[in-house]
């Protein structure tokens, strides 16, 4: 990881040294991101999305399964950022990428004995990202057209918020009406991702442009801690573990304090999508050298 950061830093420094200041701009955009480099199974081997029917023999053998791939970085996006062009062609930018709506991944299991081996249950698992926020600093390369310009951006994706909400509802078959609800908020460790975009901008006035771009975010995050927000049985709070307000930590090495579920795992956040928006030129800064 250090090598990646070092390389990026060196590259940034190098470009900065060969450039000259020119102008600032501000941009806003909306778009949609589709899952890429998705995963099918979570750490416990259960699908993120779809359905699993186990045999009625209650042995845990799968009778049928239907899975969908999942990435929590997909959905509708809003982007706002600033850009600073050193020259007509080279610049840097910093964007905030906000997941306005994120897909809810729902898994339905039938004849499940994974929760409690002595009790068969039909379970519903719902998982989604809670307003994910990424900070994306990047390099900008841009053509030098008058009205129409092609541009490319490449940078790193810094996850500012990538919390996952997990809601589990279990209907036990052996005791009619016996229901259990377990909700938790999973916080993640910091992990570096990468982002790239290729786009087209059209200048409609001296300071105002429209743009459209295709973009990519390559990112996985890893759980650090989960907080139990709800644990009820038949609608009543229970003191049975894990208790409401309790916390579970996730690690990749050491000695787990309770069970195997404390082992950290990867949560997919990669996406590919498009954005459309507008940018406003905040005015030229006094340049060091005349460009033309």
């Amino acid at each position, binding site marked *: 990881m250090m*090598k*990646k950061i070092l*390389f*990026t830093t060196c590259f940034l420094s190098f*470009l900065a040294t060969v450039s000259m200041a020119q102008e600032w701009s501000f941009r806003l955009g909306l778009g949609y991101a589709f899952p*890429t*480099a*998705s*995963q*099918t*199974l979570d*750490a416990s*081997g259960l699908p993120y999305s779809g359905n699993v029917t186990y*045999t009625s023999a209650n*042995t845990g*053998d*799968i*009778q*049928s*399964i*239907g*899975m*969908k*791939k999942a990435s929590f970085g997909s959905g509708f996006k809003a982007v706002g950022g600033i850009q600073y062009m050193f*020259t007509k*062609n*080279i610049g840097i930018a910093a964007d905030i990428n906000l997941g306005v709506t994120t897909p809810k991944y729902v898994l339905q299991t039938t004849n499940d004995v994974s929760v409690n081996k002595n009790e068969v249950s039909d379970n519903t698992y719902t998982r989604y990202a809670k307003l994910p926020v990424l900070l994306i600093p990047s*390099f900008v*390369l841009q*053509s*030098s057209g008058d009205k129409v310009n*092609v*541009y*490319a951006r*490449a940078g790193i994706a810094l996850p500012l918020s990538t919390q996952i909400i997990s809601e589990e509802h279990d209907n036990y078959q052996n005791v009619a009406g016996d229901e259990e609800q377990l909700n938790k908020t999973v916080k993640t460790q910091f992990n570096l*991702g*990468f982002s*790239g*975009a*290729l786009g087209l901008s059209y200048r409609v006035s001296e300071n105002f442009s429209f743009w459209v771009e*295709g973009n*990519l975010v*390559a*990112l*996985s995050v*890893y759980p650090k801690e989960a907080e139990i927000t709800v644990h009820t049985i038949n609608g009543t709070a229970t003191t049975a573990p894990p208790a409401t307000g309790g916390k579970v930590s996730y690690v*990749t*090495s*050491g*000695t*787990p304090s309770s069970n*195997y579920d404390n*082992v950290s*795992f*990867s949560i*997919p956040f*990669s996406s*590919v999508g498009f954005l459309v928006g507008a940018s406003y030129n905040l005015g030229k800064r006094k340049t060091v050298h005349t*460009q*033309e």
Partner: protein
Amino acid sequence: MKKLLTILLACSSYTVFAQHAEFARVSNSHSRNREKQPLTDVTTWYGRVGLGYAFTQAGQVNSLYGIPYSGNVSYDNTGATINSFSYKKASLNTGVNASLAMGRMFGPHIGLELAAQFDVAPTKYTFNGHNLTLGGNLSDLTITQQAKSPIFLIPAAVFQTQVANKLQAYARLGLVLPINTKVNVSVNNTDPTGNYAYTAVQSSSFSLGFNGALGLKYEAAANLKIFAEFNVMSLSAYTKKEELKSYSENGQPIPLGQISSTTTTYTLSGSNSNPNNGTGPQATSSTPFSNAGFMIGITMRL
């Protein structure tokens, strides 16, 4: 060794192509600044050869078997409590890779490129488990997994711009079409009843990935440039089947003809024809092939 190989490749290529350098620069009569005029690759074909190294990016912890790709775990003598463990993130498309590409610029800034990328020395991941409970016995299990010469086709849009005399910055954004994402698997298990070991090859269904790069090119000769770039690949493959290649018990090879089923299929959806004995399609899992790395090499006009 990797650095040496890279330097040798760059030097030898430079020598060969420099001898045949007869490409003229395109003069830019509209520019009043000679230092900022575009270089030669305006509406031209070019070839690109590079060598680099890729690191794990967006890696996964668990493999198809629900067991970590890399690391170790040790349970106590009851097999119920973990004494210690240490796992690492993994991507099967890391290590030394080479790229061969051909492209065409349609002006000073925009072009298209098709690259073939080869992971020439993919990382081998090993998991060691002690006192794992498997089949009712406490087992010592070792699993190694390594991609089998991964190959990718990468069609991409190229954008480039002049940043200084003889120096260009460029970016690429494209698709990743996996040509080969097979994975070699080796399993060795010892428990009180004996030892078994097998090797297998996992193959994946087709899955689209994405690739991006940001780099610099320096014009070393009229027709030759040296490039250095940072690149990212985002790709997961999904296991379609696992084919048994060898099997042994207590060190004695067992002919595959004596084994009832040598192929296990994995799907996103399906019904298990005989769930009680574990036959039929199994739930597929994603195999991580994402990476981030750097590459250096040469481009030459064709």
